[in-house]
């Protein structure tokens, strides 16, 4: 039994390795200073188990680093680029030969997008409107590659969707909202 588990996880690592030659960004994680995961976006197919293992390991590694240290570190055969904004850590995994600085600015642009959309974003916005955070990310990055880097264009797309939403919604009773009906 334990042998099986080992074989499985080795296989998964191999899979991750194979895919390294492909995607630019492998995954993006947002987590709090307390180590709570707030957003996870995976651009490589991994099992849930492997995703949890990676998350645990990385959160631990990044949180252990001191403030003035550099924003890049080698991890397995990937490179981690991270930056802290207030209580949240934004953390991306890229391939070894990829450009670290531009990835750092990908993070920053995403933060700007969230900030503009939510109006001075804080961790709570991302917790309560997690689906919006995912939608904004999809407009900005697709498949791990920058799709649209203009702040205006991304926000325009999201606002248009919000307009569609507004037209579609009709007000509901409070009881119904809470889920008591």
């Amino acid at each position: 039994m334990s042998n099986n588990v080992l074989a499985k996880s080795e296989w998964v690592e191999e899979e991750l390795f194979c895919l390294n030659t492909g995607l630019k960004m492998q995954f993006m994680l947002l987590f709090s200073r307390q180590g709570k995961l707030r957003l996870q976006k995976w651009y490589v197919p991994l099992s849930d188990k492997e995703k949890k293992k990676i998350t645990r390991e990385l959160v631990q590694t990044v949180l252990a680093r001191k403030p003035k240290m550099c924003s890049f570190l080698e991890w397995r055969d990937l490179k981690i680029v991270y930056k802290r904004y207030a209580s949240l850590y934004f953390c991306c995994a890229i391939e070894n030969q990829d450009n670290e600085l531009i990835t750092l600015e990908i993070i920053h642009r995403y933060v700007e997008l969230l900030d503009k959309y939510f109006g001075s974003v804080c961790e709570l916005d991302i917790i309560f409107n997690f689906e919006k955070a995912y939608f904004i990310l999809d407009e900005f990055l697709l498949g791990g590659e920058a799709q649209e880097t203009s702040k205006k264009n991304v926000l325009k797309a999201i606002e248009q969707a919000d307009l569609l939403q507004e037209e579609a919604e009709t007000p509901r009773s409070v009881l119904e909202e809470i889920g008591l009906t």
Partner: protein
Amino acid sequence: MPAVSKGDGMRGLAVFISDIRNCKSKEAEIKRINKELANIRSKFKGDKALDGYSKKKYVCKLLFIFLLGHDIDFGHMEAVNLLSSNKYTEKQIGYLFISVLVNSNSELIRLINNAIKNDLASRNPTFMCLALHCIANVGSREMAEAFAGEIPRILVAGDTMDSVKQSAALCLLRLYKTSPDLVVMGEWTSRVVHLLNDQHMGVVTAAISLITCLSQKNPDEFKTCVSLAVSRLSRIVSSASTDLQDYTYYFVPAPWLSCKLLRLLQCYPPPEDGAVKGRLVECLETILNKAQEPPKSKKVQHSNAKNAILFEAISLIIHYDSEPNLLVRACNQLGQFLQHRETNLRYLALESMCTLASSEFSHEAVKTHIETVINALKTERDVSVRQRAADLLYAMCDRSNAKQIVAEMLSYLETADYSIREEMVLKVAILAEKYAVDYSWYVDTILNLIRIAGDYVSEEVWYRVIQIVINRDDVQGYAAKTVFEALQAPACHENMVKVGGYILGEFGNLIAGDPRSSPLVQFNLLHSKFHLCSVPTRALLLSAYIKFINLFPETKPTIQEVLRSDSQIRNSDVELQQRAVEYLKLSSIASTDVLATVLEEMPPFPERESSILAKLKKKKGPGALPVSELEEGKREGGGELNGGADRGNDMSAAASNASTPSPSTDLLGLRSAAAIGSAGPSTGSLLVDVFSEAGPTALSSGVNDEGFLRDLEPPTESSDSLLIEAPGESDSEDSAPPLPESDELLNKFVCKNNGVLFENQLLQIGIKSEYRQNLGRMYLFYGNKTSVQFLNVQTKPVEPLVEGGAQVQQVINIECLTDFSEAPLLNIKFRYGGALQNITLKLPVTINKFFQPTEMASQDFFQRWKQLNLPQQEAQKIFKASHGMDIELLKTKLLGLGCALLENVDPNPENFVCAGVIQTKAQQVGCLLRLEPNAQAQMYRLTLRSSKDTVSKRLCELLAEQF
């Protein structure tokens, strides 16, 4: 209120999230979640049909629960239902759920694909984008099967909206990476390239990622993208910071697009078109210039974006590796960053310089920063930066700075982080070996390594030092002395005891003359460590003891006493007990002769790639080492080997293979069909199709090829001759050009006649040769290093069968007809694992092999020297000593050369003079040699005079490589 709450009505979700956040413990959270899951389950199962809004809300709650890290095993169907909703928000949540939680439930996939198909056909750009995002997020094979044909059409259709094009490009990229076979190139590919010209910067940004990936796999088909990319880049680089409006990021125009363009160009060699190339070089220069301009903003985003482009440009410059001017400018720029106050920039500069160090144009420029890098290794506060500094030191190391770098790395090791110690140890060991000019320095370094970081010294490292000491007799005495001293430390690492035991057991006699290290002192020192060591080390020490009995008969009673003690002879460990019993018996019954034979000094280890280099490669992956190093492997200096145990394995593998040949792995490698018949075995499994030929250059220098090949040619014109390419007929495309290292290999044999000529993973070629006058005989031993049986189809000179692990022998008779300077070529072809192996080596036959030594007195020597006074009769070279200036070693080499070493001829006793006659069939050429060492400058002056100018010249060339 944030904009988001405007239309968002899922208050139930917000309440649930608040509840979870208010949970005081993990148990409370799980309880709350289970309650919610039960509620949702009952809603989904209930009789009352749920409206779209409720479905959306519950699906979103499930998603939230899943993202918290809990398992979700239902709700997929409801999510799929949302996909076909007409309401955008419901559709959106449905797609999000599917993107995050899809599994390969085949029925669901069909439903999902169906919904996607409808949305793609809807002509509603918002719906189309949602569907494309979903495909890109999931990227499964099933989706590739369904949509790989459709998406290229959407991408290049004239009426597709820009935002849809962007999503389609990246969606296609994802599918291409998952299932490249399903994305069929076609008419659309050329139109994709032209998206680089698109007016919409967002479309270019998305499309270029796709184009880069496609170019990597099909470079020819996408070649046109190079000039398009260059002109796009040039427009961006030369634009003012406001020109690109929202694509300007902190005063930097389109940084993401610029980086992607520079990355795309790295898929191709430098542009051939002069105009395109000129424009590109201009761009790169502009980027380098901008780095020197004052920043337009103090924000870190500005400098990051600017430097991101700069680093990508430097990568391109390194990739081209053809513009010395740009390479040196890049290096200077990185040099500035090495001292930057931003840790990130220091890190990246160190990393980027590593690749610059491997370019011949910038290697020297990188080396000038050595002090800064060493300082970084000592003072950086972040281990990842220190690691980069260590990597760079390793990359910039060469003969000129090896001692300094190794010393710095050693001293850093004392305080190095545990995480990088093992790698550092390997690197130090490799550098010490690779650049060892004198091997006592090498021995000191490795022993220091063991002293400082014993725990991190892997087996490979201490095996290696023993291999080298055994193979180099000039360092054995020193090694024995040093290890003896090291063992005197009160606490020494077990690895030190292993090295000490092995070396004293072999070479303890070299220091036994000194009463401070007399045999008994040596033994007592080793034995004082015995009880602190693990079983394998104790076993090694027992072997060292029995070797002592042979080296120093006077220690026999003491050692026998030790072996006889209960703690040895009745040891609970069976290996130790057996050794004690057998060694005791051996020492008491065997005669001195037998003992001397059994316990003879270990023979030199055969050369092979350094096992530590292999280990580092394995650790870091092949990309981690500069290419030159991989190829160089490790040729200079001492021999190599993996330890006796390895050899044992080889032998047992050979033995077992002989009894069970595996026909399935045998391969047919015949050069012609006719040969099968002639060779006999119709199931001809193959191998060594050996034939030898004189290279065309040998022809031009007047060598009669046949003289070299006499024995290889069959005596009569039998069918066998089909197998042997007649030298004149062999076309050059058939045999590989000589290996790059073949000259170096040749040089190894100038002063010796026996040894290993060549070795790779499959084949080892050993050589034994003897010469008399103008004749020579060479025995070539082809060793099959694999465990696979080889069958030889060439029956004449070589045994027909080459067993796994076995050897066959080939004899070549050589006759020197006239003097020559190019060595004959030896071409070996065989098939292994289906691949034709084609190796061309230079046969180590050099003109000096035909030397007859001539003894003469001082007077005669100088008389002849003066006679040979025509300028062309003399050849002279002044060169730096590359192997140390040990007198005994020099003498051995000169004697190995084949001429007579004349004593008391030169008035300066430091100098060497030699005389001999080169015997060829056509003529005899008298040669005189004078070698003047200058120990202070570590230089030699070598002068050769002979009656034939070509001979003087050639001998001078050959010899200059030897000292």
